[in-house]
């Protein structure tokens, strides 16, 4: 039995301090809250995501790492690093799950590989561009998919679902 219960941000302290909160502590790209001398990082932040033109609350380690780097740059006055594609991973017994991007506004789903073989990837597209990839034991699909999410280059559907064509060639 799998139960997904979700999580609620513990933003009471931030609210008590008068910081803007909206399903999490609202921060900008530098992870700065509505009080310019206070930063917030990690699962409890509601952060902008320019790639998808919206703000999200992301529960993931790479998100916290990305924000930590942004804060460090902001504090010492360096330019912020380029925004990263959100990504997630988990090892479940012999299954390596690697996910890049978020399937916002996707209008098409394409599957590469055979799910019965436990080695396949699900691509979520919006107007021919990959918004997210969910890869199971499929590192090339994850890595190339992540790059295609970042570039938002339109992808050739016929090549994407053809296992005889490498992801390198698909990503060109």
């Amino acid at each position, binding site marked *: 039995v799998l139960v997904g219960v979700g999580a609620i941000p513990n933003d009471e302290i931030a609210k008590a301090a008068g910081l803007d909160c909206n399903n999490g502590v609202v921060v900008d790209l530098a992870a700065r809250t509505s009080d310019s001398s206070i930063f917030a990082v990690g699962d409890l932040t509601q952060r902008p995501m320019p790639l998808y033109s919206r703000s999200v609350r992301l529960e993931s*380690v*790479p998100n916290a*790492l990305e924000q930590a780097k942004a804060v460090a740059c902001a504090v010492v006055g360096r330019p912020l690093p380029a925004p*990263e594609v959100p*990504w997630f*991973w988990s*090892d479940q017994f012999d299954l*390596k799950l*690697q996910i890049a991007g978020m399937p916002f506004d996707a209008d098409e789903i394409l599957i590469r590989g055979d799910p019965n073989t436990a080695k396949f990837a699900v691509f979520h597209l919006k107007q021919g561009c990959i918004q997210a990839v969910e890869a199971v034991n499929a*590192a*090339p699909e994850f*890595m*190339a998919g992540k*790059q295609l999410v970042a570039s938002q280059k339109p992808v050739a559907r016929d090549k994407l679902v053809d296992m005889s064509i490498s*992801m*390198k060639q698909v990503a060109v």
Partner: protein
Amino acid sequence: MAKITFVEHNGTEHSVEAKNGLTVMEAAVKNNVPGIDADCGGACACATCHVYVGEAWLGKLDKPSAMEESMLDFAENVEPNSRLSCQIKMSDALDGIVVTLPESQH
């Protein structure tokens, strides 16, 4: 214990001692060696612990797994001596290993 020397892209060297069984990535993180991000914590899931292994030690390493090869395939500035340092376990045979770090891990 075995010695590892990390050479940053700018030439700065960091020598650390690592217990046998520890990975090169873990030795870097434990010793605050800059230039190895290891975002996934060592699961061969992100390719942000990319290193170039010194020629003298390259042949002493186990061959990369299919997963490591796939990840490296899409990393930036990959060379024939590229490896993911989370997949290199230290042993007496690797005492003195030298690894050079790429300019960035993205």
